């Protein structure tokens, strides 16, 4: 109990002498430990993966069992790959919540004070959280999207519909979906840091991603540049009128994330923790 190492002489200069300092890499390692050691974030990730696979499969099963014409309907059904990726928009909300929780859970528990006491410059914590949320979202959802795609392919093959990753735009849509979700995770981290409340941040993101597109209907010029629509462009395989080209859409969506993250960085350094 009382085995405190006696470094009273060495202590005041210990860090200076060893040259050990807080680095982005160390903070990244810390955030990785935090992410791995929580079940709640893990469950959100599992839910995200399942939502992609399940939502991708349902339309395909509809085609198979209900005799829906994969090429005759409206919206995403004009686009078998889009059908395979319909899970994406719902997953977007789950991933956004994941990003939000990575930050807000530290505020609700008070852990943020310990985190910022350890890293008083604060921003490395924000960058690390954003990077980890993005990386995890990308890897997990890419695996899920590929699984969904292959499963849909098998199901549709039974209905004599062929889809392939080599079809132009298909591989891009699959990878693009995961990139979209990775950027969404960053957006979640940024909103979490800005609003510090999970409910507030998720509500704001819901508004930004799913409500603004409705407003966009009033103004066709602005519509493609709204975050929800811009992001959605990258998962479309068929050319859709009134939307940005796929990568441009993802680019615009990423600009929203960068802007939000910048605002979060400014708020974080200015506010009391």
């Amino acid at each position, binding site marked *: 109990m009382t085995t405190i*190492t006696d470094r009273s002489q060495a202590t005041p200069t210990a*860090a200076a002498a060893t040259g050990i300092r*807080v680095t982005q890499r160390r903070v990244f390692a*810390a955030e990785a430990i935090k992410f791995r050691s929580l079940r709640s974030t893990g469950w959100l990730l599992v839910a995200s993966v399942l939502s992609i696979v399940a939502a991708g499969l349902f339309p395909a099963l509809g085609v198979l069992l209900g005799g829906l014409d994969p090429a005759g309907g409206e919206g995403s059904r004009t686009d078998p790959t889009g059908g395979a990726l319909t899970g994406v928009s719902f997953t977007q909300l789950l991933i956004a919540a994941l990003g939000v929780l990575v930050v807000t859970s530290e505020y609700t528990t008070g*852990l943020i004070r310990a985190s910022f006491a350890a890293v008083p410059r604060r921003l490395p914590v924000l960058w690390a959280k954003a990077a980890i949320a993005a990386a995890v979202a990308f890897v997990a959802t890419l695996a899920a999207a590929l699984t969904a795609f292959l499963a849909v392919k098998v199901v549709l093959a039974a209905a004599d519909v062929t889809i392939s990753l080599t079809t132009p735009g298909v591989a891009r849509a699959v990878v693009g979906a995961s990139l979209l979700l990775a950027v969404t995770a960053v957006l979640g981290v940024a909103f979490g840091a800005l609003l510090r409340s999970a409910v507030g941040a998720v509500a704001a993101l819901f508004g930004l991603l799913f409500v603004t597109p409705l407003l966009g209907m009033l103004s066709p010029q602005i519509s493609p540049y709204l975050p929800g629509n811009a992001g959605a462009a990258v998962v479309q395989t068929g050319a859709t009128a009134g939307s940005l080209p796929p990568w441009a859409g993802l680019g615009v969506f990423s600009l929203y994330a960068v802007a939000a993250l910048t605002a979060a960085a400014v708020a974080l350094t200015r506010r*009391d923790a």
Partner: protein
Amino acid sequence: MIEIRNLTKVYGGTTAVDGLTVTVRPGRVTGFLGPNGAGKSTTMRAVVGLDRPTSGEVQVAGRRYADHPAPLREVGALLDANAAHPGRSALAHLRALAVTNGIGRARVDEVVDMVGLRQVADRRVGGFSLGMAQRLGIAAALLGDPAVILLDEPVNGLDPDGIRWIRGLLRGLAAEGRTVFVSSHLMSEMALTADHLVILGRGRLIADVSMEEMTASATGQVTVRSPQADDLARRLSADGAAITRPEPDVLAVTGRTNTQIAETALAARILLTELVPVHASLEDAYLAMTAHDTQYRATTPATTDPGRAAA
């Protein structure tokens, strides 16, 4: 060493800390006392850079907290016992904090043993009692083997064993030459642990004194027993002392120090059989001091009183 210079912190319209200047020195346990809302926690948060001072400056271990390349290795702080995610194990919590400052696993295991959490280190923090959470917070504060340690209300929720343990721990840390700054509203606990006191009232410094001065100065009363009590009483009152006589041969003297009384008695060849300065309990001393502060503030409405100004 913690050097607080003219620290002021205003939240909205409320001044939590008002021009506080104090130096907390190494090698002793400095108790930080004050009623709830006096600004103790705000001061501590400002020391570790969590709250940005409205004006003034705080240096800890020679520089601003944020300027330390690896702050946990210089300064350890327990500000909130619940500052851990309930879903995470104690070990993962400590490892995540340690790795930011390049502190290895061996040291994490060491502090876990030191605070007596080995048995529950792999359990989720959510199931911890307040006492266990306090121990976890203390473990986090000790991670970097820091020269300066700040603990905000560390005995909250600890059982008697835990309180005795932390008392020993703090005294041990101070004996090793570290700066130990501990806030508490429990006078009795402070009386047993602290060597020095910093007392805050409504964000202002009320006292920065050693424990001995604090308890001795509060009453200024000396008890004298003498077979020639009448004669002594006459001579002392002639010198301007106030005297009461609880017993025929006992005088309770205020206004003269024990040395002055002894000199008076010696000059008159008066035999003293007892000469005892009366020490107040820390609690009495504290109440006397803060009561004075309240009066002072109540009779000087001209001084800026943020609480009243806002009302």
